[in-house]
């Protein structure tokens, strides 16, 4: 039989069917209002102070990976900022319309993140937009390095980019600081995750080939690792060059 009422409700509350009810949205709106610093001039935005307070309330450390996870949920445009739309839509989709529910969700995230590659990939991709200045297509190198460190070295990370003999993430940062690159493109950002995952499965980087489509900065990194970090293995090659 047709449940017309339910379908209509679902339609009017956002049309996705899985979206929260209008009731939960209104409570989320009220919750958002609490953190606003300047309700008159920017009624739909929360800045640094409110964000910090909010993170504290839901027990999310702004210096840890769970913060990025939360930022992804509420589609925060950039660090220490929240928008009403993102906040309400994000949490209502998860059915978390109270602080305690959100806190519980953060707790469950902390438990599940280290093993969920899918969730991590989503967060990783979100981070590029989150880290870049508005209107720019690139992330400044210093920011990129900082976020990579957070993403690849956090205890919560599903892709901990380091091996006993190959501290990849540290090498990556070290290499980037010596390179002439000033900023990171979205393509490099995306490909780096792919590259990181492959190096974890194949420490010798035998998967790498100059013929493949890796961005040149990754090609240069491979070269750099071979020369700087594993010189012994490179002796033969060098001899051939001379």
């Amino acid at each position: 039989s047709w449940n017309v009422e339910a379908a209509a409700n679902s339609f009017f509350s956002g049309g996705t069917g899985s979206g929260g009810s209008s009731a939960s949205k209104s409570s989320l709106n009220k919750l958002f209002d609490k953190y606003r610093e300047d309700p008159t001039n920017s009624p739909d935005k929360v800045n640094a102070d409110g964000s910090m307070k909010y993170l504290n309330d839901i027990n999310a450390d702004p210096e840890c990976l769970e913060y990025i996870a939360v930022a992804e949920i509420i589609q925060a445009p950039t660090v220490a900022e929240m928008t009403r739309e993102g906040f309400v839509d994000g949490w209502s989709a998860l059915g978390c319309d109270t602080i305690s529910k959100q806190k519980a969700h953060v707790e469950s995230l902390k438990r599940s993140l280290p093993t969920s590659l899918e969730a991590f990939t989503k967060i990783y991709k979100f981070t590029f937009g989150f880290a870049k200045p508005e209107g720019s297509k690139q992330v400044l190198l210093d920011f990129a390095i900082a976020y990579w460190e957070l993403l690849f070295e956090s205890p919560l990370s599903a892709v901990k980019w380091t091996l006993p003999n190959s501290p990849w993430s540290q090498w990556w940062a070290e290499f980037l600081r010596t390179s002439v690159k000033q900023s990171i493109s979205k393509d490099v950002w995306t490909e780096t995750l792919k590259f990181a995952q492959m190096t974890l499965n194949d420490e010798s980087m035998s998967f790498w080939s100059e013929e493949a489509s890796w961005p040149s900065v990754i090609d240069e990194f491979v070269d750099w690792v071979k020369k700087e970090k594993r010189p012994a293995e490179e002796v033969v090659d060098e001899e051939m060059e001379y």
Partner: protein
Amino acid sequence: MKSARAKGLHGDDIDFENTWGTLASAFREIHTKNASRLSYEELYRHAYRVVLKKKGEDLYKRVLGFERDWLSTEVHNSIQALLTPNLLVSAQAVGTSNTNERRVAGEKFLKGLRQAWGDHQVCMSMLADVLMYMDRVYCQDNRHPSIYTAAMVLFRVDILNHPVSDTDARAVLDLLNRVILDQIQMERDGDVIDKYLIKMCVGMLESLHEDEAEAEDQRLYNTSFELEYLTTSKEFYRKEAEFLLRDSDAGAYCRHTRKRLDQEEDRCKSTLSEVTTPKIQKVVEHELIKNRIHELVEMESGVRFMIDNDRLDELELMFDLNSRVDDKKMELVRAVQKRIVEMGADVNNAAVAASTAPAPAPDAPDKGKGQPQEKNSNQQTIAAIKWVEDVLQLKDKFDGILRTSFGMDQPLQTAVTRSFGDFINSVSFPRSSEYISLFIDENMKKGIKNKTELEIDAVLEKAIVLLRYVQDKDLFERYYKKHLCRRLLMNKSISNDVEKQMISKMKIELGNNFTLKLEAMFKDMTISEELTSGFKKHVEGLGDKDPKRIDLAINVLTSMTWPLETMSSGDDEEGKRTKCHFPPALERIKRGFEKYYSEKHSGRQITWLANMGSADIKAVFPKVPQKDGTTKERRHELNVSTYAMVILLLFNELPADQHLTFEEIQAQTNIPHSDLVRNLQSLAVAAKTRILIKEPMSKDVKPTDKFFFNEGFKGAFLRIKVGVVANGNKVESDRERRETEKKNDDSRGFCIEAAVVRIMKQRKELSHQQLVAETLNQLAAQFKPEVNMIKKRIESLIEREYLERIEGAKVDSYRYLA
């Protein structure tokens, strides 16, 4: 008689033993060659009757028994009589015994055996005639071989397979094989042997079979002799190859091998059997060629030596031998390629050495700063031209080898072409494009003087030949434009027609796109001529002729077409945009032309490039005492650069005893510093064109230097050309080359991006590998981009959102974003 016959035919009382006795004695007569007394008809009737009386089987067995007896006693004994100790020496000892004696003994044995075989055949065919009815009735009914055939088998069994003697277990057949092999070996060593005799014995072996089945492939010749022949030949040629490689040179080795192949073919025809021809050829080819070709090619006197010493006939042999064992002629190809690349590298290195050798010391210290440099650049140009000639000479050499020795074989042609490409485009020799362009430049300026059309065409063709090898056509185009630019603007080209001929040759070779800009340069020149004459008419039409009027010849160059930066002095960026202050007389005519031009082509902007012009000026030097005591007034026509003219005109207004400092000249003319220095060096330092006097007199020009007009100047000729240091097409310095290459790389970047976008626009989605391959393909006619460069351009296009990666694709792929 009639009744007796009837009785004989129908009675059972035939006495078989009696009849056989008659037949046997007749057979003995036949075998002892006394058959003439016998009556064939009578004998036939006896045999006929025996068979008729169903005694065919008995008769058949008796005949065979008789033959066995005969063979193993009479014939065997006669063969025994042929055996001499000489013949029986073991194979190992063959080498030590006297060849001649062995040959004679061998021939005697062969003759005896052939005789026995021949006799056996003759006798048996006579017997077969007598026994015809037995063959037809008994043998056919009982499926027995004919008596002739059965008797032939007996020869194999009782003679050939029989041991040589009680003490020597070897079969006669083995001995026969050995004797034939021994004879052949003698022939291989240069003796003359009785080929016909051996052929007869081989014939015997060919008509006998290994067993009763008599299968075609079981001929005794094939199962016995031929096998041994091939084995011993293999061993012989293996050793011979070893010996030849050690004691002979490669050419002799080739000739010898060829001779051996021919000999073996002849031997099969004349001495053995032609069925052996392909087999023995293969053995020789295997042992003398296939197993040795690498060593042979690599011998000191091998392919390299043959190439270096133009041993065309030996190379042809080498080619022939290698083709016999390998369709691809890998060893020869490899050796030829190696030599081309080596010789090419020598040519390249010689060019580098010649161009970097220290310049000869200037003969006089006061020749001016420019002199040694000029010489150096000449030396470099000479190196460039020599390089082109050397490469062409190398090409002629290998063309000759291809034609004469390799029969224009396709794989070798390809290999030669590839190797020329390899060294011409060698990473360690980045000068090919420049050198070829310089070669053309030199010929356009001087080389083609006094040459016939045919000769000129040959010169141009040479350049085209080399150009075909050049991978980076874009770099060549850059150099060609640069050199052509100077030729045209400085009027250095001897013949416009030849220039255009060259362009049309390049058009055919490299396509329209390549020559588009070059043709545009010629078009500019033509238009400029029209403008010059048009302007002259225009000025004349303005009214009164001004005796002091300046004639203007002008070249209007489209800025994107001409590589004008190559015309500036090079070391100062400032020079390009600063405007020189012309004296009023010049300024007037300049404005006049600008007005004239803008009326013809409104909206176009003219930028004056004073650094590129020249001027003819008439100079009068006053009556002052000369060194030789005369005081005549002297007139000279000076050909100077535009800048030099501007400088000299300053002194027109200046009393003779007054001077201008460098700084004053610079302030008044606004000529860029380095151009000013060079022009003042030409006017005040160079010995023969010292129209100004510099104080203090020194080579270097300093800001505080003072300049006076040289009233006492005296030139040897009416017309004096004041050269400016360093102007002419010459080989680039390393720094210049790096700049040219960088410029080239930049423009390659655009080409690559354009190609990638073109491809993706059409294909929408494409894997990384395919995209790279297609890009390389599209650009192949222009240059060969590095894969890394393509990758960077793709990356940049992703960043600018022309492309995106297809997420989750099996192989790395891109999508075009419209």
